[in-house]
């Protein structure tokens, strides 16, 4: 398999090759995301029975939990690309990190929003200073900080590198923040809520949730690939191959 050779990866880390690869991949990811989404929602809304305690209201988990997962996964992915970018100085890393950030912020926001909508009927309040909700809020702030910093720096390379550093610093801090908020939560003995740990979660509910999570994964991948293509066009606009593409599109 040539996939295991360093050349293979280096080849696709170059903007031109990646542009082509991303262009071939994203429609498949998008189509798969739609299919998985439809299937997941079908299971979640048409097949899964009502929950014994929470009635029909529990169905919010089909977006809430996958969105929370994605918001964390995307931040880790950003940190991963940042480490790669700072160590190997690849041009692609900065573009990937920047393309991931808005989607990550959106999922963090969705997680907070759906959490609030779930909280109101279940615990009678829109917001609880629960460890998980609070850390999610701080994660949302970290995303906003990254986006604000990278968009405030005009120089591309400097913006990429500064963003990479703040993403890594943030990623190191996320577990510490989570731990500290959890500690704070137990100290104050405030609302300690378990959203997802109903012990006898029906098999079909779990499947619905997993399918939705996979749908969000593929949605993210498709969108990020699409965004990176835009960035590549913009950054490589002076090169001959981009000129050719522009010409053909005209």
């Amino acid at each position, binding site marked *: 398999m040539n996939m295991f050779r360093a050349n293979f990866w280096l080849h696709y880390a170059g903007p031109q090759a990646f542009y082509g690869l991303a262009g071939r991949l994203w429609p498949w990811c998008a189509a798969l995301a739609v299919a998985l989404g439809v299937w997941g929602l079908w299971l979640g809304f048409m097949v899964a029975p009502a929950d014994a305690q929470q009635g029909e209201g529990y169905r919010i988990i089909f977006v809430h939990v996958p969105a929370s997962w994605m918001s964390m996964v995307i931040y880790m992915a950003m940190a991963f690309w940042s480490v790669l970018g700072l160590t190997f100085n690849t041009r692609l890393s900065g573009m990937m990190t920047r393309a991931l950030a808005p989607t990550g912020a*959106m999922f963090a926001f969705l997680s907070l929003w759906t959490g609030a909508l779930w909280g109101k009927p279940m615990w009678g309040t829109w917001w609880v200073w629960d460890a998980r909700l609070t850390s999610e809020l701080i994660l949302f702030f970290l995303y906003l900080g990254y986006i604000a910093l990278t968009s405030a720096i005009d120089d591309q390379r400097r913006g990429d590198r500064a963003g990479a550093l703040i993403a890594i610093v943030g990623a190191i801090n996320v577990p510490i923040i989570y731990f500290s908020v959890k500690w704070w939560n137990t100290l104050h003995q405030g609302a300690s809520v378990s959203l997802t740990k109903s012990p006898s979660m029906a098999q079909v509910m779990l499947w619905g949730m997993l399918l939705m999570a996979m749908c969000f994964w593929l949605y993210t991948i498709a969108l990020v690939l699409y965004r990176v293509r835009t960035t590549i066009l913009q950054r490589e606009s002076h090169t001959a191959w981009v000129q050719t593409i522009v010409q053909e599109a005209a």
Partner: protein
Amino acid sequence: MIWESWTQFWAMGGYGLYVWGSMGVTSGCMAIEVWQARSAHHQHLAQLRAEHEGHL
């Protein structure tokens, strides 16, 4: 099928506002994001094309 009628489906056992509020905002956000990415892509292409024609 677990629902007996559409009204029942939309009511979600009294949780309709919350469940559909979540679903609506989620799909709305995703739609906006996709639309934004598309328009950014086309905008850049148009801009590059304009520059390209300017050079000719």
